[in-house]
């Protein structure tokens, strides 16, 4: 899923300065699962804002809505009349959702309430961790199913570096060394010989470095 962090209340209030009608818009996909922009979080933020404006003696109307997805225009378009009542949409979706809402409502100001961070997994209740960078050329078959691009701080394809210590990364002692995990897994699979292969220079043109990406399935197009 896509994981994010909610921006600080101060930053959000700063962005909303001067507006009088705000719609807080959540999403039921990834941001609901990682508890940053679903129905619950929309309710909490909207209440916080109402309390704040009430205390400040300012008349700001704060509305709430949650879409199935903010990355499909059918859902976004379904609230056109509601959006018409507000000056600003404060989206609690990932960066893709924020932008797509803005594209569909060009006459409205659309602001982000979330800092989108990574593609990851739930490690335990309340903990998520990065697994994929969408580099466009998966190497997991070469690295025992553990991604060095996303999980090594230096994205080393022929790691580990000299800072791997006790299974941890030199950058953050809370973070596993991806190459320690790879070596351990190769050993467990009886494939440590694979470590000896040099992984060649990567084709970064398939990652974001090649420019914004687009996928077309001609057979699906109408």
């Amino acid at each position, binding site marked *: 899923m896509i994981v994010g962090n909610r921006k600080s209340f101060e930053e959000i209030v700063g962005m909303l300065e001067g507006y009088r009608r705000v719609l807080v818009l959540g999403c039921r996909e990834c941001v609901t699962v990682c508890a940053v922009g679903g129905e619950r979080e929309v309710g909490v933020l909207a209440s916080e804002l109402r309390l704040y404006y009430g205390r400040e003696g300012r008349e700001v109307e704060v509305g709430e809505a949650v879409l199935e997805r903010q990355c499909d225009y059918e859902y976004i378009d379904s609230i056109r009349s509601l959006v018409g009542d507000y000056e600003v949409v404060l989206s609690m979706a990932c960066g893709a959702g924020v932008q797509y809402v803005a594209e569909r409502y060009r006459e409205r100001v659309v602001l982000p309430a979330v800092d989108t961070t990574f593609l990851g997994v739930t490690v335990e209740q309340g903990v998520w961790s990065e697994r994929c960078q969408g580099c466009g050329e998966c190497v997991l078959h070469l690295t025992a199913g553990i991604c060095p691009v996303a999980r090594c*701080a*230096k*994205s*080393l*394809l*022929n*790691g*580990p*570096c*000299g*800072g*791997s*210590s*006790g*299974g941890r990364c*030199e*950058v*953050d002692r809370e973070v596993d*060394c991806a*190459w*320690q995990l790879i*070596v*351990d897994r190769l050993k467990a699979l009886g494939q*440590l010989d694979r*470590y*000896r292969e*040099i992984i*060649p*220079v*990567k084709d*970064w043109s398939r990652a974001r470095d090649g420019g914004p990406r687009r996928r077309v399935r001609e057979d699906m197009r109408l």
Partner: protein
Amino acid sequence: MRTRSNVERILESGGFVVTSECGPPRGSDGEVIRRKGEWLRGVVDAVNVTDNQTSVVRMSSWASCLILKGMGFDPILQVVCRDRNRIAIQSDLLGAAALGINNVLCLSGDHQRFGDHPRAKNVFDLDSVQLIQAVRVMRDEGRFLSGEELRGRPLLFIGAAENPFADPFEIRALRLEKKVRAGAEFIQTQCIYNVERFERWMGMVRELGLHERCAILAGVTPLKSVGMARYMKTQVPGMDVPDEVIDRLKGVPKERQAEEGIRICVETIQRLREIPGVRGVHIMAIEWEEKVREIVEAAGLLPRPQPTETQEQRT
């Protein structure tokens, strides 16, 4: 010989190599390099010049190398993958060769997190193994990483680093093998305080026959104080400082700890020289370059072989 490197020449003649390093200043004052160079004159066979070590911005490695070259040294250009992509790195390698630099040390580079610009974007387009490959392909095949031909091959003697003390220990020799297969001709190791562990690693290296395919230069760093030893042990990832080293420094008065640190360093060099497959030492006297002469002399490694005419810069 593939290059005009003084290190390559001494290794080919069967000699024991002594290298040291010079950290460029955090400013544009070339005198700092010249002063450090004076301390090393006649003491070492080549001088590494670090590339923004510990991710702190410093004078560029190639510019500092050029100053040392002008003083008659054979500099070793350190190149890290953190700050430059394959376009910039290949360009710098061509430029370094054009300036008469004969050696390159290929490194991944410290993460910027601990440097003076922790908010910087890192690059890591290549890793150290791929960087070694790039230099070898450029030099021996006359091609860029793209496969296209280049004119005027960069005649660089290819070095790499390895840390025998980092984890996982069991692949540390296999990782060296990758570097050797990629094209590394000499290796400078992380500083050695735990000689037993280094010997075990050398055993694995010899088992793979790597000591015959590349020259291992064992790294040492003299300790200035017990405080420095503790810092290295606890704060520097992948560093192994045994308690007996710390205890030995603790056992002498504060004002004599530096002297004791030098003594430990000299004894370490003498032990390292006895290990089969060790072809030289790399003395990293961090902001203590003035002590290198004393260490090399006490270790019985003076005088150094004179560079021959072939080492002179082409005019």
